[in-house]
């Protein structure tokens, strides 16, 4: 859910590896980010709508990844996938690290690009540890 740079990269990679992938986005124009070789399904719709998720095949999905720009939208859709459709492996990108930590205690796998980015950059600054 969410065909931005991250979503398109994840979908392209899974597709290349032979998995069956459906990409969901509100804006069909976002599908241009997918590689030309992409063989999965592209669905236009709101992933916070249970009917849209069902039509996208959430009931049969082994995994659900929410990578829209909105932490709360990602959370809402992830819980729909988990609670209503029984998806086992759910990943919810959460930019706000505090919120992400709480979401992690509520049944989701979360990833915070903010914390990960800060750590990666700090690692590139020699001597950035305790002075």
């Amino acid at each position, binding site marked *: 859910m969410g065909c931005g740079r991250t979503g398109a990269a994840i979908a392209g990679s899974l597709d290349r590896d032979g998995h069956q992938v459906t990409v969901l986005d509100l804006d069909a124009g976002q599908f241009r980010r997918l590689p030309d070789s992409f063989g999965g399904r592209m669905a236009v719709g709101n992933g*916070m709508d249970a009917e849209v998720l069902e039509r996208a095949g959430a009931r049969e999905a082994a995994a659900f990844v929410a990578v829209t720009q909105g932490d709360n939208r990602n959370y*809402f859709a992830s*819980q729909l996938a988990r609670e209503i459709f029984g998806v086992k492996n759910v990943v919810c990108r959460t930019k706000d690290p505090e*919120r992400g930590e709480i979401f992690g205690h509520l049944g989701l796998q979360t990833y915070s690009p903010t914390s990960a980015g800060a750590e990666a950059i700090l690692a590139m600054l020699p001597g950035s540890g305790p002075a």
Partner: protein
Amino acid sequence: MYVIIAGGGKVGYYLGRELLSGDHEMLVIERSASRAAEINDLLEGTVQQGDACEASVLDGAGIARADLVAAVTGDDEDNLVVCEIARYRGVPRVLARVNNPTNALLFEKRGIETTVSATEAILSQIEQELPVTSMVPVMQLHQGLELVEVRLSETSPVVGRTPREVLLPPESLIALIVDSGGVPRVPGADTTLTAGDALVVVTRAESKGMLQEALIGGAHGFDT
């Protein structure tokens, strides 16, 4: 009792105002700075600007000692997140406004059982309380539009008003008024709606319930 209200829109504001007049300690958290400033004056300084979906904002608002958190923004995903964080912080009672009635199921699955949906409440009033016969279908028009006739009784909420003052559902309009003497008139700025008038109204099939409520009334004492 200490109540935190997330969202200072119409619902949050009126809720805050009612709680303020009682014996409760209350705080409204509103994301928009201009809206927060606007209602802060009206709510005697009990409004804090901030995003209630951020745990640190809720912590700053003293969520640890809150007895109840009501999440009443216009976005269901925000309301869900506020309730989840509040519960995670140990708030004994959380309550959510649900804008899309079908979302109530997810709130329930997440253990947030107190949800309030105005859409659902109005719908049930329309289905249960209104006489179905007071609106007569006249004909089907193009593209989902319909022509219906509504006869105004003494108890109609629009009697005494001009057509312009009547709040109709989207894409609905009063096309013609036939008074009790059988005289047809095109509604104008100086037309007053009178009991006994028959209104010929263009509307959409899915708006007929709301139209009925607007012109005939019947949802008793409900206000949003």
